[in-house]
């Protein structure tokens, strides 16, 4: 049985907690021991947020520490680079190509600087907003990223595992958009 640690990094309001709980439920359905750590509260107001997901046999605490993550799913560039120390040397990063400068901050690294930081590890860059819009709504950015995360094959999950879950959670249009976003995100890495 594999044992994995994932960090989902981004900004409050980007739907990180949904990604964490969907992945967690899908893994639980596969009988893994799952732990998802979240920080709520202030972080809902545009602050820096990280969700930790661990699964496998034995003890799984709700915190991922330095050099432990197999995968970082980043929804914003600065926040992704901020969590780099958590990544294993041979871990992977899937990142949304989106830079949101914190309001009223003086020195903001450029997109190029951030991307070159990420290029030091195995990383995939996704234009999640464009794909989400293609699927039907900008709100589906998190589903695009979830699809991209699956395509790395680092987690013991595949598209149908998530589709099962989504069809229990959503209906109608929302379900359709989410499914499409998931698929587009998946394909963006596959190619």
């Amino acid at each position, binding site marked *: 049985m594999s044992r994995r640690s994932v960090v989902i990094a981004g900004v409050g309001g980007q739907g990180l907690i949904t990604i964490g709980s969907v992945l967690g439920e899908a893994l639980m359905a596969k009988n893994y021991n799952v732990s998802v750590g979240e920080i709520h509260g202030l972080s809902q107001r545009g602050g820096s947020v990280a969700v930790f997901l661990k699964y496998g046999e034995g003890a*799984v605490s709700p915190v991922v520490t330095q050099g432990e993550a197999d995968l970082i799913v980043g929804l914003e560039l600065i926040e992704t680079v901020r969590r780099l120390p958590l990544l294993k040397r041979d871990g992977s990063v899937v990142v949304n190509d989106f830079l949101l400068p914190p309001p009223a901050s003086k020195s903001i690294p450029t997109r190029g600087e951030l991307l070159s930081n990420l290029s030091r590890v195995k990383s995939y860059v996704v234009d999640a907003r464009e794909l989400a819009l293609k699927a039907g709504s900008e709100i589906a950015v998190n589903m695009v990223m979830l699809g991209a995360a699956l395509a790395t094959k680092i987690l013991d999950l595949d598209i149908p595992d998530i589709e099962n879950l989504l069809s229990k959670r959503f209906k109608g249009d929302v379900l359709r958009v989410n499914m499409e976003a998931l698929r587009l995100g998946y394909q963006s890495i596959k190619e």
Partner: protein
Amino acid sequence: MVKAIIAGSAGEKKLLLGNEAIARGALEAGISSATAYPGTPSTEIIEAIAEVARDYGIYVEWSTNEKVALEIGIGVSMMGLRALVAMKHVGLNVASDPLMSLGYTGVIGGLVVVSADDPNAHSSQNEQDNRIYGIHANIPVFEPSTVQEAKDLTRELFDLSEEFQMSVILRTTTRLAHSRSQVVFGEVVRPNREAVFHRDPEKWALLPPYNLAKHRDVLVKLDKLSEHLSSFRFNTVEKVDGDVAVVTSGVAYNYVKEALEELDLALSVFKLASVYPLPRKLALEALSYGKVIVVEELEPVLEWQLKVLAYEEGMKAEIHGKDLFPRVGELNKELVKAGLSRALGIRYEAPPAVMPSVELPRRPPVLCPGCGHRSTYYAVKIAAQRLRVKPVYANDIGCYTLGFYPPYQMADFTWSMGSSIGIGLGIARFSKEPVVAFIGDSTFFHAGIPALINAVYNRTPMLVIVMDNGITAMTGHQPHPGSGVGVFGEEKPAIRIEEVARAAGVKFVEVVDAYDIIAMRDAVERAIKYMREAGEPAVIVSRRPCALMVLREKRRRGESIKRYTVMKEKCINCGICVDRFACPAIVREGDGKVTIIPDLCTGCGVCATICPAKAIREVEVDE
């Protein structure tokens, strides 16, 4: 309808948040009432119970504050029924007055008080360790280590509370309250007891002839409980050969397990779910090892108790704890690995890490795009400039506390619920500059009113700006006495802040639309002049529903959202909208030009009104 998260039959397995697991445990225990004031990280307990409360005949409410919530729980227990009361750690300070006496009286119906502590102060003003409250109040304290245990322990604590006729504190921490793991459900018990008032004046009256006897009684009870707890199934020992024992509790247990695994070490582990009183027999067993390593978050609560016991019993164990692990902030596996290695004299190296090679800006939380608090701050700042005053800005607990950060910096202090007015009163007594206190609507009801009455009664000039967005926004939109709705969204009488202020005797009371910067500015100028002349307090209610909530409502109803844009040719790049107003939807692009991120804009239109070049206008969007 999506099924309520904590609904389900015995044997069912769900991925639950620690808080939801506590809610499920209470449901399985057959509670009759659940009361709370929202506060991170405790909020989801009541939210989860509310989803099923009607089906099971449970009374549930958001109370005005934690003291009231606890008092209701005590009353319910007097009726022989089971009650859950939930709050964040600092909330227990508010409820501490009835709590301290509750330790003496004990209970009839099971009463579990959840204290959700926040090591690392992720969203709190301090890190206080409420296990110490239990010791102080003579109330037993229990701490679960996993989400499953959070459910099971909650369930059993109701039995224990009734068996010993003591209320208990269930202490959790952020990492448990907000982590998700699989939980196997047990049987749900419907509250079917008859409610009877247990008339027993001697038990319930905290009056001179009885108080000392009660104090003596509770000490005896605690001793008995300590014996009983040595066979409590949540206190476990994992024994291996060797002369080293690790004693731990709460979420730290998981870090210990992971650390031992990674260090490839085998040590005996004593996991204590009852942190006060200590299970005496188990504690002595742990102390029979040559070396005892105590791994706990925040204060050395277990360590102190073990050291006292070891001294009393003349046991020679070498006891380690806070000499190896930090007393500040949260623990994690790496800290535990480092500490254990030091205790055992093993070399330890942190795993290699990829360090960022660019400097990253901090990202403190911000007021949302479209938030009425921002425009209120902006208007107050302009008013102060026009009056040439440098107010002392007294701030309180809520989203608006974020006005502390640049560019606003309008929180000269921020303390605890209601303190902006209370502490402000002390400053206003002596300050030449005016005191402007900001307080949210929920906080006003929670603890602001007594201080406001004081301002009137003692004629203290002070401007109180109640930033009324109609909801307890910070914790995720729970209603309060001003909201006009209850815990289920059902209609309730709405108590008007302006009427409360007038009834308290405030003569200057005005209500302003928070988006209307000019109206707000003028009201502040009038108010400051008034308080200077009359020497009395003034109140302005700055009103606008929480932008986040309005946006969610619109999305749910499928309504379109207006958006604003910067007309590049008209923009003079003055920076007012981005540097001074600082709506997070407005950013500077690579070329230094100002632009609005369409996905973030909520269409409040305030930026358009403050732009001196009239360069911002509404755009048509169809979704």
